[in-house]
């Protein structure tokens, strides 16, 4: 009995040994020019890792990049991405006009666009969708992106107009200013425009309306102060609001209107030159009213309920497993759509994604899916590692509210002590950054101050800390991640070496980090790591961060002049002039150094050689209609080792 068993054990050991030897033999695959198997999938199917499990497929509720790529495939936009340069190109809107001052945009929609249930997609769908996007009940996290539209912000804020019942006039900000503490209270605003009606000519308010919270309690807090939050009240308002009516901002006040079924008109709060660049963002795409009203705000995105409008439609959504999209044959541009199927497997682990890529189970990944420590080697040895410029910046926010960082000399000294080249060299494609925006086609970013340790020491001494003497220990906050740690340790070492400043690194979990770095909290004694990925290809997506109103400012630095510079620049219709004005604003902000820019991240991902028309670009968004699989490109045609033979030989195991 015993001998039989021992022999069985020997057999198992032998088999294991064989497996290991066989594994060792194929280790030669290391020198291959491509990472893992090169074997195109059957048919026009793309398997793409877009990151973690999508939160939702509702384009107006989603906030992450992973889901936004899926939204771009299933919902058609007024304009769409161009793969190479991310310029907006006409899609649902065939063309558009702008009025002279840049506030009224009229979009002419194509007449052959349909929802997947066969209903026509027209201007009324856009009116419904944009109103929903900023509705306070729906509470979309990205609502602020649409604040450029007239009255969208007060509607989303649950605000109310103030009306004088005697005269029927409405309060404007000018009226409040004129009333002051004891001036005359008289309202001058005409009735606010309602966009469900035809445009009325006649008196339009020249000044901005004055809004108060629609909720009586909140209004009371505004006037009398909020002891719970330690906010002072504005007692002068009491007189101003005495005996007045409050008219809630209604959804009809939001500046969107269907002139006819195929003409969609948007009225903006102020001239906004970059408006059309916003429109391919998923937040501005139309959602199906018929499905939402039938199934409710949340349930309509279920695969069995969802109605879409794009080149692809949802076939299957198995959460944490995959989303399968298939060609939508009724799509107006179906003839130019090349893929039949896109599969988005969900995975959160970078190494798991790489394993799947190497074993040929996926074809491409999103940007930054390659683990940072692998990148240098990948760049040197593998042809399917793709990288290019990306609208992603990394910087340190300085808490300008606490000393000694409230001194601009100290902030400049901190900035001058950083040798960005060293930080950028840690990963391929990173560009050192001294300004606050990456370089873009039309935009030459501001210069900012680079590495200059002598000047840094001089400034620090002027501020009263010669050779760092007496400088309090400051904190450097970042969210836990290996790549962040490396950067933060480099900065820590540089500040110590150049300025003799002691910096303590604090790493916290993601949600805690988000909470601590919020503009309203700013719970960090010194510096906080920040990263930002642009939403659209325009400097404003970065420069807007540093305005007083921005919830993402996170530095405590606020400057009315900077706000005004941005406003004026964005109202400028001459592009060249506008870019110069934005550059001036950026330089102005950088002179006060509320931030320490570090680097511009590259868009870098893996993509098998047989996938065509999918290239690194500024937003890491893709024009899915153009992507296709070239079946002529195989391991054989490329002359590389065919690693697929074993899986074919042992195919039975894979069933």
């Amino acid at each position, binding site marked *: *009995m015993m001998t*039989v068993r021992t022999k069985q054990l020997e057999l198992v050991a032998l088999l294991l040994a064989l*497996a290991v030897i066989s*594994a060792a033999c*194929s280790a030669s695959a290391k020198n291959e020019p491509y990472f893992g*198997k090169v074997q195109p999938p059957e048919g026009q199917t793309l398997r793409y890792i877009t990151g973690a499990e999508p*939160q*939702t497929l*509702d384009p107006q509720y989603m906030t*992450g990049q992973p889901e936004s790529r899926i939204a771009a495939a299933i919902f058609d936009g007024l304009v769409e991405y161009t793969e190479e340069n991310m310029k907006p190109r006409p899609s649902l809107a065939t063309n558009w006009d702008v009025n002279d001052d840049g506030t009224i945009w009229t979009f002419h929609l194509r007449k052959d666009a349909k929802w997947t249930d066969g209903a026509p997609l027209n201007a009324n769908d856009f009116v419904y969708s944009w109103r929903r996007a900023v509705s306070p*009940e729906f*509470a*979309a*996290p990205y*609502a*602020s992106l649409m604040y450029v539209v007239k009255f969208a912000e007060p509607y*989303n804020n*649950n605000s109310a107009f103030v009306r004088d019942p005697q005269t029927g006039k409405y309060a404007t900000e000018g009226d409040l200013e004129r009333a002051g503490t004891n001036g005359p209270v008289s309202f001058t605003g005409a009735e606010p425009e309602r966009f469900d009606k035809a445009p009325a000519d006649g008196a339009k308010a020249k000044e901005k309306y004055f809004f108060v919270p629609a909720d009586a309690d909140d209004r009371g807090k505004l006037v009398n102060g909020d002891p719970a939050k330690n906010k002072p009240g504005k007692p002068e308002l009491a007189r101003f609001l005495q005996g007045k009516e409050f008219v809630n901002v209604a959804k009809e006040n939001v500046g969107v209107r269907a002139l006819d079924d195929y003409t969609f008109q948007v009225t903006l709060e102020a001239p906004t030159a970059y408006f059309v660049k916003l429109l391919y963002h998923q937040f501005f795409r139309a959602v199906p009213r018929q499905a939402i009203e039938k199934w409710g705000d*949340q349930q309509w*995105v*279920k695969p069995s309920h969802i109605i879409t409008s794009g080149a692809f439609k949802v076939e*299957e959504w*198995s*959460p*944490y*497993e*995959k989303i399968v999209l298939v060609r939508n044959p009724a799509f107006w541009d179906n003839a130019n759509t090349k893929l039949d199927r896109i599969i988005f*497997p969900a*995975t*959160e*682990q970078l*190494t*798991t994604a790489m*394993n*799947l890529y*190497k*074993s*040929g*189970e996926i074809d491409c990944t999103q940007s930054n899916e390659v683990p940072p420590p692998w990148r240098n080697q990948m760049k040197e040895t593998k042809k399917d590692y793709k990288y290019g410029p990306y609208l992603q910046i990394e910087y340190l926010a300085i808490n300008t509210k606490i000393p000694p960082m409230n001194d601009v000399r100290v902030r400049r000294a901190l900035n001058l002590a950083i040798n960005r080249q060293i930080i950028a060299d840690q990963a391929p494609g990173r560009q050192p950054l001294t300004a606050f925006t990456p370089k873009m086609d039309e935009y030459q970013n501001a210069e900012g101050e680079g590495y200059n340790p002598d000047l840094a020491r001089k400034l620090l001494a002027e501020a009263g800390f010669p050779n760092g003497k007496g400088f309090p220990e400051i904190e450097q906050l970042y969210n836990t991640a290996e790549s962040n740690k490396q950067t933060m340790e480099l900065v820590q070492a540089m500040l110590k070496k150049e300025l003799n400043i002691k910096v303590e690194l604090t790493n916290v*979990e993601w*949600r*805690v980090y*988000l*909470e*601590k770095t*919020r*503009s*309203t909290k700013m719970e960090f004694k010194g510096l906080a790591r920040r990263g930002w990925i642009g939403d659209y290809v325009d400097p404003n997506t970065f420069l807007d961060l540093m305005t007083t*109103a921005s919830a*993402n400012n*996170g530095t405590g630095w606020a400057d009315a002049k900077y706000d005004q510079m941005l406003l004026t620049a964005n109202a400028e219709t001459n592009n060249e002039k506008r870019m110069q004005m934005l550059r001036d604003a950026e330089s102005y902000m950088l002179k006060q150094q509320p931030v320490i820019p570090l680097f511009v991240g590259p868009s870098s991902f893996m993509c098998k050689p047989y996938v065509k028309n999918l290239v690194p670009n500024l937003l890491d968004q893709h024009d899915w209609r153009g992507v296709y699989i070239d079946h002529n490109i195989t391991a054989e045609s490329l002359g590389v080792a065919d690693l*697929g033979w*074993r*899986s074919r030989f*042992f*195919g*039975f*195991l*894979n*069933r």
Partner: protein
Amino acid sequence: MLKFIIRRLLVIFPMVLLVITLTWALIRLAPGNFYSQPKALPPAVEKNIRAKYGLDKPWYVQYGKTMWQILGGDFGFSRQYPEQTVNEILARSLPVSATIGLVAYLIALVTGLFFGTLAALRQNSALDYSSMAAAMLGISIPNFVLGPILVLLFALTLYWLPAARWDWLVEFGPFPWLKYLLWGVFILLVAGIAVFSIYRIMRRRSSPDRLVEDRSAEGVSSWAVTIVGFLIGTAVLVGLGFMFMKSANWGPSGVAMPVIALVLVIIAVGVGYWLAGRSHSVVLESLVYGIIAAAVPPLLALLIRMLSGLFQLTAQVGPFGIPRLRYILLPAITLAAVYMAYIARLTRAGMLEVLRKDYIRTARAKGLKERDVIIRHALRGGILPVVSYTGPALAFLVGGTVVVERIFALPGLGNYLINAALNRDEPLLLGITAFISTIILLFNLLVDIAYAYIDPRIRYS
């Protein structure tokens, strides 16, 4: 016994409520919100969201509302995945975790028992030392190391198995109902056989003259061999059927599969009878018993696959299907390693103690075969530690294992649990913790009940 069970069941309820309350309080105390994200929300939007989820109410109102909802069996909608209810997520992710967990535990149990017993029988031999050293290694290597090593070997170098992910076999033939019908018949058959064999074992146990083993009695041995033949036949052949099904591209496989299974069952029963007609030579019997160990896991794995398929049907969510074997193997083995090693050590210790007992000497003295002494007398006492370990181990395995599920990108409970905590997804976190604590308590109860059956000295009153 019944009283004991009822009393224990009554305790489970308040315990779970306590766990829910503590979890609720802990997630309240954790900094950060489910709606916070890199692009910070303007205060107005944040206010809208808080109002939408009732977070602007005082804490006791929120707590009351949450508990009232949970008492009604509804955990509400997830915050992170707003269109899915927590119940839906549980129904969908449980079969995945349960399949991986049970398969892992079966692998661990069979190999662990086998090597543990062997080591105890050959104490201080080379076999003992090497298997215990291997067990020590298994305990020491964390699964986040073992998993990637297995992936590197089997997925990225040999290209035999997929590197990660999960897939359901969803194939509907022209007659989808036929698939369910045949599966139903198959399950009934297997269950019937199982019940019958348990009945045989129980009867033998309760017979007054059980110390006198009547080797010449016709039934016992031939029945045993029949069952074994049946089990092996079904398991191996159905397993092969699964493997070839898709590659053969042979008919609507959803229907073909159970047909193959049924045909094979008949063949297997025939083979069993043929085997039963032979004399019980030592070689034949040891061969048969040797194969049992190997045959049980695939068979039970299949059973689990079917059961989880049925679960999918009742849950009415996600695709109806059966998990594919190729995606189960690597995570299950990764998961099994630690438990395998632990069970081997527990079995060895238990067996060593039992083998010195008087009743073993008695059994040997009356001339029982060594095999019977080990399996019928020693093992029953020796595996008690393993049984008590099974409860918590199984509960943890079924409840999802965060690390393995993340390495292999599986849509299981563990993955949801960790993300619910990271995303401050309160309803989902409450749902999963409530579920996991319930099964831990239930499995512990089951272990206590099993104790009473295995060890005659234990009586609950």
